[in-house]
């Protein structure tokens, strides 16, 4: 592989990875422009009846936590109270464990950042390894070319063509 071809291939793969990332990030629901509704607030809170579900999903219709919580949320949303204020009123009463997901401040930020950080680091490692391996192959290819003769080249071209047809 020529140096320019190699660079262009690298550029393409990096572009591909960048595009994939962009696509992923844009697909993140956290970037969605959402309007406040009772369901959204209910989904932000974990039911305390040990069902392990959110207040919205708790299937115990006579649940001592979810039922009054839903009523409170509906009333407050009806009064035009902001989502954050409603959620904070529950946190003040029951503690942070009432939230269905970690907050995005302080130590809790680590919960959100670490998976993506690990993914980015992993992505860089995978990219670097791929580049190194493809460079090794390119060097190997260059050595093979040095010892080639017209007949070998003809066979190599034919093999490449057939493999491309076979594997594509």
């Amino acid at each position: 592989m020529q140096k320019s071809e190699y660079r262009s291939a690298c550029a393409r793969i990096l572009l591909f990875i960048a595009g994939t990332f962009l696509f992923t990030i844009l697909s993140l629901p956290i970037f969605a422009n959402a309007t406040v509704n009772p369901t959204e607030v209910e989904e932000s809170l974990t039911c305390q009846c040990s069902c392990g579900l959110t207040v919205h999903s708790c299937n115990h219709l006579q649940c001592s936590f979810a039922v009054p919580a839903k009523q409170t949320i509906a009333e407050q949303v009806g009064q035009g109270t902001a989502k954050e204020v409603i959620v904070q009123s529950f946190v003040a009463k029951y503690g942070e464990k009432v939230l269905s997901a970690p907050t995005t401040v302080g130590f809790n930020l680590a919960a959100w950042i670490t998976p993506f950080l690990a993914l980015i680091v992993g992505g860089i490692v995978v990219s670097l390894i791929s580049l190194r391996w493809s460079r090794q192959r390119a060097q190997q290819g260059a050595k093979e070319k040095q010892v080639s003769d017209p007949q070998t080249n003809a066979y190599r071209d034919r093999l490449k063509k057939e493999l491309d047809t076979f594997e594509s």
Partner: protein
Amino acid sequence: MTHLGTLALALAFVLAVYATCMSVWGAASRREMWIASGTNAAYAVFGCVLIAVVALLHALLTHDFNVEYVSSYSSSTLPVQYTVAALWGGQKGSLLFWTFILTVFSTIVLAQNRHKNRELMPYVTATLMVIALFFLGMLNFITPPFERLAFTPKEGSDLNPLLQNYWMTLHPPSLYLGYVSASVPFAFAIAALITGKLGDVWIRTTRRWALTSWFFLSIGNLLGGRWAYEVLGWGGYWAWDPVENAAIMPWFTASAFLHSVMIQEKKNMLKVWNMVLVILTFALTIFGTFLTRSGVISSVHSFTQSGLGPYFMTFLILTLIVSLGLLFYRLPELKSENELDSLLSREAAFLLNNWVLVGLAFATFWGTVFPVLSEWVRGVKITVGPPFFNKVNGPLGVLLLFLTGIGPVIAWRRASAKSLRRNFTIPLIAGVLFGALFFLFGYRNYYAVVILSLCGFVAGAIFSEFFRGTRARQAILHENSPQALGRLVSKNPRRYGGYIVHVGVVLIFIGIAGSTFFKIEKQISLKPGETLEAGRYTLKYEGIKNSEDDHVSVQAAVVAVSVGGRQIDTLHPEKRLYKRQNQPTTEVALRQTLREDLYVVLGSYDAPSQLATLQVFVNPLLSWIWIGGIILVLGTCVTMMPSPAERQAFAQAPVKVRTGSEVGAD
């Protein structure tokens, strides 16, 4: 009979110690007789554990309530199938069941390899027996299943009503089969590391075991989802509960292994990485067991909080230290000729796929253990629930779906611009058409359209692979279409079986997208004769029917379902009261079609006012999750079929039987 069970477990423990020692000693001193003796002892361990399982089943079926386990998890009125399921319904029984499956698999592996892999097998036996020893140690010394009470209760406490469901008779065994079969590739990996036989023999030998593990983990997770959907009554199938997470994490790493192992087989690359994935998958199965039994993280699935956590954690840490230590020791010999012909190749796409799958496993692990970390660091208990996992894993899942479509259309070694253009055309057109079609049918949500378009893209990629292969056979061999398609698959079951699995994955994503973004929920209290509207359905509550037997009393609502003024069905959502545990449960009424599920729950019923509270969900496209699951399972079966080369090798292989004198001569 229970005394026999206790004795059998004690004997199994002693035999497992003997099998481990003899196998290692025999291998180290190259004494075939000792190795054979160790193998025979491993077979005997299976026999002993089988006796213990039969003894516990006998105690359950004969209602021997003097046995603490029987008294805690069954009753005289429990139906037979659930009495049998009680074997894995509690802590002790499930540990015994786990050990039983492990010894069954050990026996199969030893029998399969009695004339093969002679250098690896003693260490495989030893590794499997060490794992068995850990569980047998628990059963003998920490949590004995045949423990007796000081008195005999007249009646048992019964099995948890949530477990009295037919899916529950299948879901735990499937998961256990998946978990335990991961021990076999792990044992071979350890044997390869110890002996230094690091070629692809251990990989080839264990490929089907890795597939088996993946197969059962897939079934286990799907059945678990189905159970949650039908029993828990919240209209969903996956809640990112810690124990659900524990079951999906090894599935992610096993999926990564099944892809990366192809690169090792084809190009002798990624030897270290494959070892890491095998070790990680096994470690995650133990971690999952630790989660359910330690009480560290609260979950609806957990067994009663017990003191088993530290033992499992110790075993897990020792496993990681020993296996990673061996891996580190063998690193120089594991260096492979890692070369990529091009960054635009299937190998590179598989590397990306591994990156995302391991990323998903890590994100799930991180979210699962973060509450514990938070408590350690800040002293504050927090919850990491579905919103976190949906936001973190959701985009990764979409990325994985995208890569599922990329893999088949990129050639091995190097993809030329021309081949990329040619191979991407059909998938891209399919993706656009798919998205547009769903949009026209009313599925108008940005994320849903993105996912559904990607589903079309992947489906198009798979279709074009089948189409081109079939066309090529027709052109060269003049076969008709069905013949060409059939032979295409049978000549390369691994490749095309894998594509069928991907079709299953696509359908699962369609089901997830439809049921996540277009779900309709209604909750209302009705008197007889009153109706409610949910989507295109009109539901008329007609009244309550009561029934009762010795075991359970049932209140069933009668709900007439109409569409456009025409009655199409009558549903009977139930509220059940299991008498022994005095615990009410819901029995969902389901009307399933390919278009959508109508899911009705009877929340409560007030007899004086005749007021019934109904919770109604309309879940679009949800059935495709189960259909996709079935296709995924069928595809996995296809990949496990022997290839023509394997069939030929099998047919030509001479059957070598070693006589006693030959063994003695060693």
